[in-house]
């Protein structure tokens, strides 16, 4: 009978101690190598910038998720500089005469003089002797006869055509009005109305050109026609130009003498001009234009 002693106990043979460490070492080496490769790759990436990702495969977003806007292409052309509406239009190169072929001028008898004597040939002139901004802004005030023989409001005539530029000058007939706030507010409303009717036009606000008080008093003795009041109004108009984002044209500095007075040789009655001064006015307009693209790019709330 075999005894248990004869039976060789089953001995589980363990590998020697050194041989058991090999797989662990190999695994460690593998991990170390992977770590090194990853570290090198990361370092390269941080120096060279992001590696362009392969184009994403087209995928349909889940119905619940709104489509993501495509990222805008990288801009390579620098944007045009913004126009500063708080400043008068700077002098630039002389515009061609046909620059004004799509321009309309709104104003009073001075604007009529510009039309008749300066040499300008604008697309339109809407004016009336003695016209004030209060009347021009009033759609019920049908004071100008149109081509159809009917009387129309200024705004009605304005909306009959499409213009690229609108030039506005009011104020000399309002000098004795006596309510600066009403002048400012109404002028502002008028500019808003123009912008609504002519959304594609560049708006120019022309300063009131000074008068020659001495000549004006001799002519008809109207004491309220003063350059002090014109300066006050022009300060308001400049503020208005900034607020409404329209181009301010400092014609006051351009046509008055160094003393701020309209020279006697430039006027017949102290208020209206002689031909040469109308030509100076036109010359100023030609050298103080604003590029339409710059204008539109500078509006904080363009209509169109």
């Amino acid at each position, binding site marked *: 009978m075999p005894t248990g002693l004869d039976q060789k106990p089953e001995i589980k043979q363990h590998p020697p101690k050194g041989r058991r460490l090999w797989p662990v070492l190999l695994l460690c080496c593998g991990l170390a190598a992977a770590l090194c490769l990853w570290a090198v790759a990361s370092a390269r990436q941080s120096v060279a910038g992001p590696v362009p990702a392969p184009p994403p495969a087209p995928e349909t977003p889940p119905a619940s998720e709104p489509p993501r806007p495509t990222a805008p292409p990288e801009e390579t052309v620098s944007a045009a500089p913004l126009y500063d509406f708080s400043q008068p239009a700077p002098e630039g190169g002389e515009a061609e005469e046909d620059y004004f072929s799509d321009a309309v001028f709104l104003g009073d*008898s*001075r604007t*009529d*003089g510009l039309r*008749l*004597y300066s*040499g300008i040939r604008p697309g339109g002139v809407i004016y*009336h*002797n*003695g016209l004030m901004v209060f009347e021009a802004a009033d759609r019920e005030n049908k*004071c100008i*006869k149109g081509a159809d023989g009917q009387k129309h409001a200024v705004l009605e005539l304005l909306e009959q055509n499409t213009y690229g530029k609108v030039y506005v000058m009011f104020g000399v007939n309002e000098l004795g009005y006596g309510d600066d706030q009403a002048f400012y507010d109404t002028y502002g409303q008028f500019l808003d109305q123009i912008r609504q009717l002519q959304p594609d036009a560049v708006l120019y606000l022309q300063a009131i050109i000074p008068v020659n008080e001495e000549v004006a008093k001799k*002519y008809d003795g109207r004491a309220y026609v003063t350059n002090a009041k014109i300066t006050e109004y022009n300060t308001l108009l400049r503020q208005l130009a900034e607020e409404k984002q329209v181009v301010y044209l400092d014609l006051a500095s351009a046509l008055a003498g160094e003393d701020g007075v309209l020279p006697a040789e430039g006027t*017949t*009655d102290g*208020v*209206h*001009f*002689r*031909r040469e001064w109308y030509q100076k006015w036109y010359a100023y307009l030609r050298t103080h234009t604003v590029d339409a693209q710059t204008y539109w790019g500078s509006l904080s709330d363009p209509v169109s």
Partner: protein
Amino acid sequence: MRTRTRVCLLALCAALLTGCGGPTEGVKAYDPAAAAQALLDAKVFDQELEVLDADLAGSYLGLSSEPEEAVVYTSLEGGYEELAVLRMADAEAAAAALEAVQAHVSDRRESEAETQYKPEDLPKLEKALTEQAGNTVLLVVCADYDAAQKALDALGS
């Protein structure tokens, strides 16, 4: 010899008739530049006037056809004094131009009556002188119509 004399006399008569009669109906037309200058020299205007660029005459006066020659002066003072002498293509065009000029004056009179911009000019507008002579048209709005008429009479029209 007789035949030659007859032909010469006929030619002379024809030339004289053409010179005296003007383009139409035997009425002497105005020479725009001479008539305008005569009125300016006669000092019939109180206001300072300035000549208009000729290409603006048609649109300024509301003409349906462009004049062949135009001399137009308007007030530099925002007033209503003015002077226009137009030479049109023919008497028919002149008749149309006369109507347009009269409508122009009427519009200005109406406008001034409403606005009272220069009330002292309203009587001048009410007496405005408009006239057709052959293929020409005359418009005068001035301060002294007697002197204006004398100046025009002196032109021999």
